[in-house]
């Protein structure tokens, strides 16, 4: 496969962006469909090239197809290259990204129909896809950072797509700012690593880390810095607050960016840097703990959320935590010496990316399904839904498949990838394993809570469908991507992703059921489903009374542990805006500038006083002459 074709994978969507932005939008704004077609053609091209690359990688030596760098800039001892690598990790990612992106674009044609910003939407989507593809192909941290920020920008633009909604504008800003806090750490780490090692090249960094040249505190700090970038982008605790709010964006955006791809960039980053990060025991332990904690923490908030997209958002955060946990666990195993280097490096990446891979499909499916529901009901509030099973059978069926997959029910995709993570966690991080188990239960519960609330029971009103013609099933252009995704949500787990990534994992289709772990997790999963059924399906238990009896906990969950309040009200508004900034402002106006104006005033006052000496009395003037003479004499007297 020629290099140019590899480059084209991410350049095609950029080209599409430029065509829409510079030609279609300004000159053909009355033909919005052109933008959609351009985008879809470009992404389809990327997909084809991606698949080609995947196949080529599979056949290549060491599973590396390309790894090229070009010098971009050189000043003194600073040399910055740009370059891409196409190895198995990148290949899996490009295929995932372009597949889902393509499906989402097709879905969007239906979903975004008639929106004033149709062309803009597709332009941004192209830009996003290009950046995301570039991100996964970059072989150099600085180049990666370029795309990293690029996807952040797209996220900002797309969350705030409906900018006239103040909440959307706000959420967009929040998303960008919160992730930027993480990026700050990332950028510092990149610079730090460069200064210590003299390279931005990821491969070289790995070699240095594995050879022990790069180690100790240096490595730990760098690894934690990089991880902080991942925390921000993947919505891990404590930088998770932006992701639920990001649901203000159009649903396909949520599906693509805030579920399947961009938010997984953090996981991808850790995977990409895994050999380096895993070389630091402290760092990888931090990854594991943050991941495990986030998984259960986010899931707990998902239990009570009433907005279907928010439920999915919390779920996304939780699942991303899972992936982190998986890598962390393997890394801890490596650090403790339980796994040898060669195996560990592949295994850590494999468990996380496998889950990333399956998750991308079923989570995109779920989001798009929620979009389909909202297409009919005009709302995302589950309290206003119900009984849609009959009206939207296709949506219901696909949504159910997605939910089961997410809940990790055998033999759907989610089961396999989750099992991989749980397996490693059990082996190397037992405490976190039990947290993860509880999360499995919670996941099953909140997903089926959503299913029951949305599709079962009676329709509880809500507004009329957003398109004004009653409740109805969505058009084909929406349903077809759902169905395709549903298929993937079933079969994605059967694909040998782990093997492809070089990990020695063998789950046979039925053999998986022989392990006790699988059964425990299935029991937890079914328990969750049953509880949801009991409360929301059969209404054996009253949700309200449970909520009341657990009053404080319920409040805590529904208010998201008050973390938004802590950040925004207390830290940002109270401490910074009303506190520090006011003080600084006062200092600036009264002390720094006050000194300047004060000097001017003193001078002026001096002038006003001095001029009073000029009385107009000639004898005063005469006196001054002699006072002057005497003063000079006195001065000379002192001087000598």
């Amino acid at each position, binding site marked *: 496969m020629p290099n140019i074709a590899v480059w084209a994978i991410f350049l095609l969507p950029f080209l599409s962006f430029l065509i829409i932005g510079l030609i279609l939008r300004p000159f053909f704004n009355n033909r919005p469909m052109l933008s959609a077609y351009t985008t879809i053609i470009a992404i389809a091209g990327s997909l084809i090239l991606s698949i080609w690359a995947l196949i080529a990688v599979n056949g290549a030596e060491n599973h590396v197809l390309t790894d090229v760098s070009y010098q971009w800039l050189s000043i003194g001892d600073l040399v910055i290259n740009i370059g891409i690598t196409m190895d198995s990790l990148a290949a899996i990612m490009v295929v995932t990204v372009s597949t889902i992106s393509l499906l989402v674009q097709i879905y969007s044609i239906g979903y975004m129909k008639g929106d004033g910003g149709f062309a803009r939407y597709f332009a941004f989507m192209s830009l996003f896809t290009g950046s995301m593809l570039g991100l996964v192909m970059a072989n150099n941290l600085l180049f990666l950072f370029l795309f990293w920020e690029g996807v952040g920008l797209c996220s900002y633009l797309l969350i705030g797509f409906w900018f006239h909604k103040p909440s959307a504008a706000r959420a967009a800003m929040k998303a960008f700012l919160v992730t930027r806090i993480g990026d700050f750490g990332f950028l510092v780490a990149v610079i730090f690593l460069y200064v210590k090692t003299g390279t931005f090249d990821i491969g070289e960094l790995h070699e240095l880390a594995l050879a022990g040249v790069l180690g100790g505190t240096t490595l730990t700090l760098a690894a934690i810095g990089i991880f902080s970038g991942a925390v921000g982008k993947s919505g891990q605790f404590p930088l998770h607050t932006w992701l639920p709010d990001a649901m203000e964006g159009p649903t396909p955006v949520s599906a693509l960016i805030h579920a399947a791809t961009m938010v997984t960039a953090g996981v991808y980053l850790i995977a990409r840097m895994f050999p380096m990060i895993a070389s630091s025991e402290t760092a990888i332990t931090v990854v594991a703990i943050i991941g495990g904690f986030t998984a259960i923490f986010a899931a707990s908030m998902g239990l009570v959320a009433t907005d279907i997209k928010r439920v999915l958002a919390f779920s996304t955060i939780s699942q991303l935590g899972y992936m982190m946990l998986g890598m962390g666990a393997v890394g801890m195993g490596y650090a403790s010496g339980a796994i040898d280097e060669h195996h560990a490096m592949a295994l850590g990446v494999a468990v996380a990316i496998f889950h990333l891979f399956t998750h991308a499909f079923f989570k995109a499916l779920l989001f798009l399904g929620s979009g389909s529901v909202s297409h009919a009901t005009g709302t995302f509030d589950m309290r206003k839904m119900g009984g849609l099973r009959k009206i939207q059978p296709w949506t219901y069926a696909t949504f159910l498949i997605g939910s089961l997959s997410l809940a990790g029910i055998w033999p759907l995709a989610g089961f396999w990838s989750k099992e991989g993570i749980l397996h490693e966690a059990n082996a190397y991080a037992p405490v976190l394993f039990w947290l993860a188990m509880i999360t499995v239960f919670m996941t099953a519960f909140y997903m089926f809570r959503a299913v029951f609330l949305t599709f079962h029971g009676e329709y509880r009103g809500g507004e009329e469908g957003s398109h004004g013609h009653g409740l109805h099933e969505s058009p084909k252009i929406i349903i077809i991507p759902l169905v395709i995704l549903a298929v993937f949500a079933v079969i994605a787990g059967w694909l040998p992703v782990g093997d492809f990534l070089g990990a020695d994992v063998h789950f046979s289709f039925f053999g998986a059921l022989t392990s006790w772990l699988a059964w425990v997790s299935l029991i937890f999963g079914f328990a969750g489903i049953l509880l949801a059924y009991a409360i929301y399906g059969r209404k054996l238990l009253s949700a309200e009374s449970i909520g009341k009896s657990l009053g404080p906990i319920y409040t805590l969950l529904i208010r998201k542990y008050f973390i938004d309040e802590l950040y925004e009200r207390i830290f940002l508004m109270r401490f910074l805006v009303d506190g520090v900034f006011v003080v600084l402002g006062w200092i600036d106006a009264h002390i720094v500038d006050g000194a300047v104006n004060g000097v001017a005033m003193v001078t002026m006052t001096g002038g006003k006083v001095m001029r009073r000496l000029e009385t*107009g009395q000639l004898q005063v003037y005469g006196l001054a002459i*002699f006072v002057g003479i005497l003063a000079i004499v006195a001065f000379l007297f002192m001087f000598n």
Partner: protein
Amino acid sequence: MAVGLEHFLVLSAVLFAIGLYGVLAKRNAVVILMSIEIMLTAVNIAMVAFSRYGQFITGQVFVIFIMVVAAAEVAVGLALIIAIYRSKKTVDSEKFDLMKW
């Protein structure tokens, strides 16, 4: 103690100081002018004393020129006083404060 250079110099200083006092303390412009003349005369005494005790004739020459200049100054000064008297009807120096500050 025989009278010597110092005596004359001190005399000149005393006269100069008296003139100075007059210049600063008297309100009538004419008296101020008179006091200035006393100061100039005091300088003249010092000049002549130096001339006498240093055996240089230059001092006396200087005094002649000072006298001439003093006369000219008095002439112009009195003319100015008369001019100002015409417009202000007073020669009180404390009233000359049209311009100040």
